């Protein structure tokens, strides 16, 4: 099971980060977004091709009011 922002998702092994972003309503060119998979930053340039493994933990983050 692939976890997206802390919740179980319907993503499957082999799906790309582009699919993960799509689940969140984001385009590949979304501004102010960063992605980590299993605790490592995945640079924007790799989102389209990055394939998710079984049990991947995906975090998709953006700016929120704070500080």
């Amino acid at each position: 099971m692939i976890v997206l922002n802390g919740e179980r998702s319907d993503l499957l092994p082999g799906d790309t980060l582009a699919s993960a972003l799509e689940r969140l309503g984001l385009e590949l060119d979304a501004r102010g977004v960063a992605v980590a998979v299993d605790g490592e930053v995945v640079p924007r340039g790799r989102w389209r091709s990055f394939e998710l493994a079984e049990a991947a933990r995906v975090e998709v983050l953006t700016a929120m009011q704070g500080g």
Partner: protein
Amino acid sequence: MDEPGTSNGAVDVGAAPLRIAGRSLSSRLLLGTGGFPSLELLSEAIALSGTELVTVALRRVEVGASGSLVDVLAAAGVELLPNTAGCHTARDAVMTARLAREAFDTDWIKLEVIGDEDTLLPDAPELLRAAEELVDEGFVVLPYTTDDPVLARRLADLGCAAVMPLGSPIGSGMGIRNPYNISLIREAVEVPVVLDAGVGTASDVTLAMELGCDAVMVASAISRAADPLRMARAMRAAVEAGLLAHRAGRIPRRRYARASSPVEGMAELGLD
């Protein structure tokens, strides 16, 4: 000193712009974006405060979240200062900084590593660890720190671009509890000192500048004021007043009065 004058409704304080890591800032007020009830209000407060640098936090994307903070801030023409708010370990803070660099295309990071939930005071050992690693990775590190001059010096020695000592706990509005330490920090480090946290009202900001701080960071005191826009304007004036007063040089405190009217030339009115 240069001639004080006015332009754009702001006092020209005749000071060179604040420089942090090679970036020039003509406003010495940093604004936190937390606590504003709407992006519209935030946008207006940015304009009234005159700030050029605002903090943002990094959080999970929410599906269908309304309005984009980054778009609003881009439209306001301010630079982003991402923070590591909510991080309790050096490891989390470093990871958050890397994500922020990726998200916002900036090497600047306001480093916060919290050691206690009730006071939100910094965890000094974790803070030093994170600062060292982030400086090594090329970040421009602005650490939120206690008002301890020794810790501030350690952070500066590690290569932090500024230090951000607290006046009192975040959001407490208790102002500057230890002004002596803040002035000691100003003497202890070469890098800019930005008072961060605890500001309750305009006089706290003025005091920080009078103590020699190079800038002040304000969030809740504006966003949670009864009238945030009026307070945003007040804070701008407060920074300017404090900077001017600091440059002007205050009179020494005395235990007894010193007459401001001449003592010579008094009339003898013969009433005794």
